[in-house]
C-alpha cells in the first residue's frame, strides 16, 4: 500500500464499495440483535448498536454506518451522527459495563453531523459525555477504524483500550479538504494537507494513536476471519485484567500522547 499517497488513501477511505459497519457486524459477530434508541429523544440510524456473540461470547457492538446504496446513505445520514446517536451508543456501553461484556466499535464517519438540530440537541455535550464516560468504563473497549475516522465524531466512539485501523483508512482531526480550506485558504491544496496531517495508518501508529494496522487483502473472507479471531483474542486477554488495571491502562494510553 506504500505506493499510495496520503491523499489517495484518504480518497480510498471514503470510496464507494468498501465494506461498511453493518458488513463488519455481519461477518464478525454471530446472532446480532439490534437495540434501538437513546431513550431520550429518538433513534439515530447513523449509529447501529446491538448485542451479539463472537465465537459464542457476548459482546456489545456499535458501528457508525455510512450506507452503501444512495437510499441507504440518505437513511444513514451519510454516517454523520446526531447527539442521539452518541447517546444511544453510551446507553449501550453502560449496559455492557453492567453485564461485563466487552464493547466493539466500528468507526466510519466524516464527522459528527453539522446542522441546526444537532447543535440544538447538544452535539458537543453528547460527544464530551461519551469520551469522558468511555475513559472510565469498566469493561474492555476496542475501536476499529474501517474507513474514515473523522475528528470528535469518531473519537466519541474511540476513547478505547486500543484502536485498530485497516490499512486504507484514515483518522484525523479534520478532513484534508477542510484543513486546506481553513489553513491554506485553498481547498485545492487538500493533497498537501493530507500529507501534513499524518492521517494514514502507519503515521498514526508511529504517533501512538493506533495500536494495530490491519491488512485488507481486498476485504475477502480471510480478512474478516482473521479480524474476528484477533478481536476475540484481544477481548480474551483483556477479560483477564482487573477493571481497575484496565481503566488505569486506558488512562495511560491517552496520557502519554503529546
Amino acid at each position: 500500500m506504500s505506493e499510495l499517497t496520503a491523499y489517495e488513501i484518504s480518497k480510498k477511505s471514503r470510496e464507494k464499495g468498501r465494506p461498511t459497519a453493518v458488513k463488519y457486524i455481519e461477518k464478525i459477530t454471530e446472532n446480532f440483535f439490534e437495540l434501538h434508541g437513546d431513550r431520550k429523544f429518538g433513534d439515530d440510524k447513523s449509529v447501529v448498536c446491538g448485542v451479539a456473540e463472537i465465537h459464542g461470547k457476548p459482546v456489545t457492538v456499535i458501528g457508525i454506518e455510512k450506507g452503501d446504496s444512495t437510499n441507504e446513505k440518505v437513511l444513514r445520514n451519510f454516517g454523520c451522527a446526531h447527539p442521539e446517536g452518541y447517546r444511544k451508543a453510551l446507553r449501550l456501553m453502560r449496559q455492557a459495563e453492567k453485564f461485563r461484556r466487552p464493547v466493539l466499535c466500528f468507526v466510519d464517519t466524516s464527522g459528527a453531523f453539522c446542522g441546526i438540530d444537532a447543535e440544538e440537541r447538544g452535539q458537543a455535550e453528547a460527544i464530551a459525555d461519551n469520551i469522558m464516560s468511555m475513559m472510565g468504563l469498566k469493561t474492555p473497549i476496542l475501536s476499529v477504524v474501517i474507513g474514515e475516522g473523522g475528528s470528535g465524531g469518531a473519537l466519541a466512539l474511540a476513547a478505547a483500550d486500543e484502536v485498530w485501523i485497516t490499512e486504507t483508512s484514515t483518522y484525523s482531526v479534520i478532513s484534508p479538504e477542510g484543513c486546506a480550506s481553513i489553513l491554506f485558504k485553498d481547498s485545492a491544496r487538500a493533497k498537501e494537507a493530507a500529507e501534513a496531517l499524518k492521517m494514514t495508518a502507519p503515521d498514526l501508529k508511529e504517533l501512538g494513536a493506533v495500536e494495530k494496522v490491519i491488512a485488507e487483502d481486498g476485504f475477502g473472507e480471510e480478512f474478516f476471519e482473521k479480524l474476528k479471531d484477533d478481536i476475540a483474542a484481544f477481548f480474551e486477554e483483556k477479560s483477564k485484567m482487573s477493571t481497575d488495571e484496565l481503566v488505569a491502562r486506558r488512562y495511560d494510553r491517552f496520557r502519554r500522547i503529546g
Partner: protein
Amino acid sequence: MGFDIRKFFFRKPNIALEGGEDDANAFVPEKAAIKCEKCKTLILSDDLSANGKVCAKCGYHFKMGARERIRYISDEGEFEELFADVTAGNRLDFPDYDDKLEKARAASGENEAVVCGEAKIGGINAVCFAMEPKFMMGSMGAAAGEKITRAFEYAAEKKLPVIGFALSGGARMQEGIISLMQMAKTSGAVLRHSQAGGLYISVLTDPTTGGVSASFAFEADIIIAEPAALIGFAGPRVIEQTIRQKLPAGFQRAEFLLGKGFVDAIVDRRNLKNTLSFLLSLHEEKTAKETNDEEAAV
C-alpha cells in the same frame, strides 16, 4: 482621530469547527478609547478595563486575556502559576506552524494557549485555568491539553476544586491526531478529579467551540456561560456552508443554550467572582469543628 476605528470592530464571523485562530480582531487594541461593538458607545480604555472589559452602557462582554481573567476573579495577589514551562512543538513538521507559534507568542505574551495556576477566590483555594484568545484563538494542541490535564491531576491530588475558563476555536489542526487525542486525555483527567469528589466549574466564554466544547468544557459539575458567548460544536460559518442557509439570530449563543438546557446559568462577568466564591464556599469541605465554630459565631 487619525485611524479608522471601523477596521478594528467590524469583523466578519470567522469561527470554524477547528481553527479560526486568525480571528485576531475583537480584541481591545492598545488605544485610549474604544467603540463598543454592540452599542457603538465610545468607551475609555481605562474605564473598560476597570469594568472587567464589559461595556457599562449595554453590557457587551469584550474578550479577555487568560491571565487577566484569572486575576479578575482571584483575590489580590493570590495567584501562583503552574506548569508554565509546558510548550508546544511542531511534532508533525506541519508547514508554517513554527512561524504561527512564534506570532502567537508575540501577540499574546504567553507560551501557550492556556494559563494554569492555583488561586484564592473569596479566600478559598482553587486550581484555575483560562484559555488565551490571542494565542491562536485558544486552540488546543498537545501543550494546552497537557496543562489542563496536569491542572486536574494536581487538583485531584491536592483535593482542590477546579475553575476553568473555556475559550477556543477547537483542536489545533497543525498538531493533527495529537490534538484530537487531547480531548480524551483531558476528559480522563476531568473524570479522575470528579471521581475523587472534586468540584469542577466550567465557565464558557466567547467562543467555545470544536474539540474544546466537545471535551472538558462540557464535562463540569456546574457550567456557567458569559452573556452572548458563542457556544457550540460546529462553528456557525461551517454550519451555514453545510446547510446552505442563514442561521437564526441568537443561534448558539449562551441564552440559546440556557433555553435548550445545556448550561446551568448565565452570569455577567462583573458578578462572576461573587458567584464563584459562593459556589466554592457551598462545596467547601468543612471539618465538624469548623462547622461548630461557625454556628457558635452566628
